[in-house]
């Protein structure tokens, strides 16, 4: 039997070894568990907001992850338009999906906090409102990917929108902030100085979520790489027919 040449992997560069990913998974899990323990057991109740303030840690960490993810989309989109390499497109897509996931978490946990501390689910607070618009922008990004059928065109259009959307975010934020100063914000959250233990918990949460982001991103990228491989093999199969 002649030796079959191994299939060349189209996006081999995207695939980290199983071992590396496993250790990231373990570190992520431990860090999140530690953060969770600190949130429930280690930090004291907030002096003014009480128990509910403990939502804050993962809520803000999710927002951080969302911003990180959309920053990656922006950079990967520019790189894609500059170099036209499929791996940047895969990176932008994977990161956008994860960003929408974390934005959704921010939007779910925010009102849960608001119901207790402001006694209403939603306020048109600049941060909350900007997060909502952010969610819409990146859902739109995912919709564009669904609507464009040829892979190359899909990547190009998505990259263009990924750049446009990210540039829009600060403008949205500031226009909403000025808008809210005209309609005075009824309820505001006083950013009290953080206690040391609170700051520690916050930092651990941030680090844990950053690891979570990297772990999810690598796994999501692997899905893209495998899809490329399937598509390429299918093409070869049809070619030999």
């Amino acid at each position, binding site marked *: 039997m002649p030796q079959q040449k191994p299939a060349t992997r189209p996006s081999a560069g995207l695939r980290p070894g199983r071992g590396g990913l496993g250790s990231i998974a373990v570190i992520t899990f431990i860090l999140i568990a530690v953060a969770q323990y600190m949130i429930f057991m280690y930090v004291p109740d907030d002096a003014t907001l009480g128990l509910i303030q403990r939502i804050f840690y993962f809520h803000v960490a999710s927002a951080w992850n969302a911003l990180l993810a959309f920053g990656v989309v922006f950079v990967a989109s520019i790189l894609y338009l500059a170099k036209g390499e499929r791996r940047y497109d895969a990176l932008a897509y994977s990161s956008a999906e994860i960003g929408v996931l974390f934005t959704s978490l921010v939007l779910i946990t925010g009102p849960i906090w608001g119901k207790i501390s402001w006694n209403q689910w939603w306020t048109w607070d600049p941060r909350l409102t900007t997060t909502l618009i952010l969610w819409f922008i990146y859902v*739109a990004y995912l919709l564009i990917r669904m609507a464009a059928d040829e892979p190359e065109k899909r990547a*190009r259009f998505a990259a263009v929108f990924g750049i*446009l959307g990210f540039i829009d975010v600060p403008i949205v934020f500031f226009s*909403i902030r000025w808008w809210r100063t005209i309609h005075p914000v009824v309820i505001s959250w006083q950013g009290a100085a953080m206690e040391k233990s609170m700051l520690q918990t916050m930092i651990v949460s941030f680090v844990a979520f950053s690891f979570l982001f990297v772990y999810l991103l690598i796994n999501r990228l692997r899905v893209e790489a495998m899809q490329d491989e399937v598509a390429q093999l299918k093409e070869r199969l049809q070619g030999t027919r």
Partner: protein
Amino acid sequence: MSFLRKVGLLAWKDLRAEFRTKEMISAMLIFALLVIVIFAFAFDPSRDEVRSIFGGLIWVAFFFAGILGLNRSFANERLNDALHGLMLSPVDHSAIYFGKLLGTWAFMTIVEVIALPVFIVIYNYAPSGSWLLAIAVILLATLGFVAIGTFLAALTANTKASEVLLPVILFPIIIPVVIGAVEATRGVFGGLPLDDFVTWFKVLAVYDAIFIAVPFLLFEYLLEV
């Protein structure tokens, strides 16, 4: 032929084609009027509060009507593969963008200038303030809307489900224009001192500048085949 002249010619081509049938302008106008009439059933149109929300009402009507125009601006060029013809003509692709932008800007402004007096009459609204400023708001806000709208219309025209997709991807991006247009209109028509709402003119101007520059740089990537 200078760049500006090419842009002008491309816009003129669209205007001439439209004035032959008046298909799109009349549809946009009727739609804008319908939106305003439907608003009258959503709340009591005879109440005084109308004064404070009038700016919001007219812009919702204008932006919704604008979507109709944008959806057609590139979809029309797909008939008979006219877009390829345009791309093969000896003009920069960005000239196509600016031509389309100018055309749609003109259509929307015409619709707005006709519809606004009607809105004022049927809501018994008495706007105060300078008309010059009101025209400036209309031109600036409409420019921001069509600048990014034309660009995204070129994007969606090349996808399946283009007409559904355009409003969904356009509205999140134009939130600053919506806020700026509504607040500036409220200020102008409410007869407030200019200092109270000059911020919104700045927001609109900055937005317009950014979202003409960025599409100008990126438009090439939308037309590659």
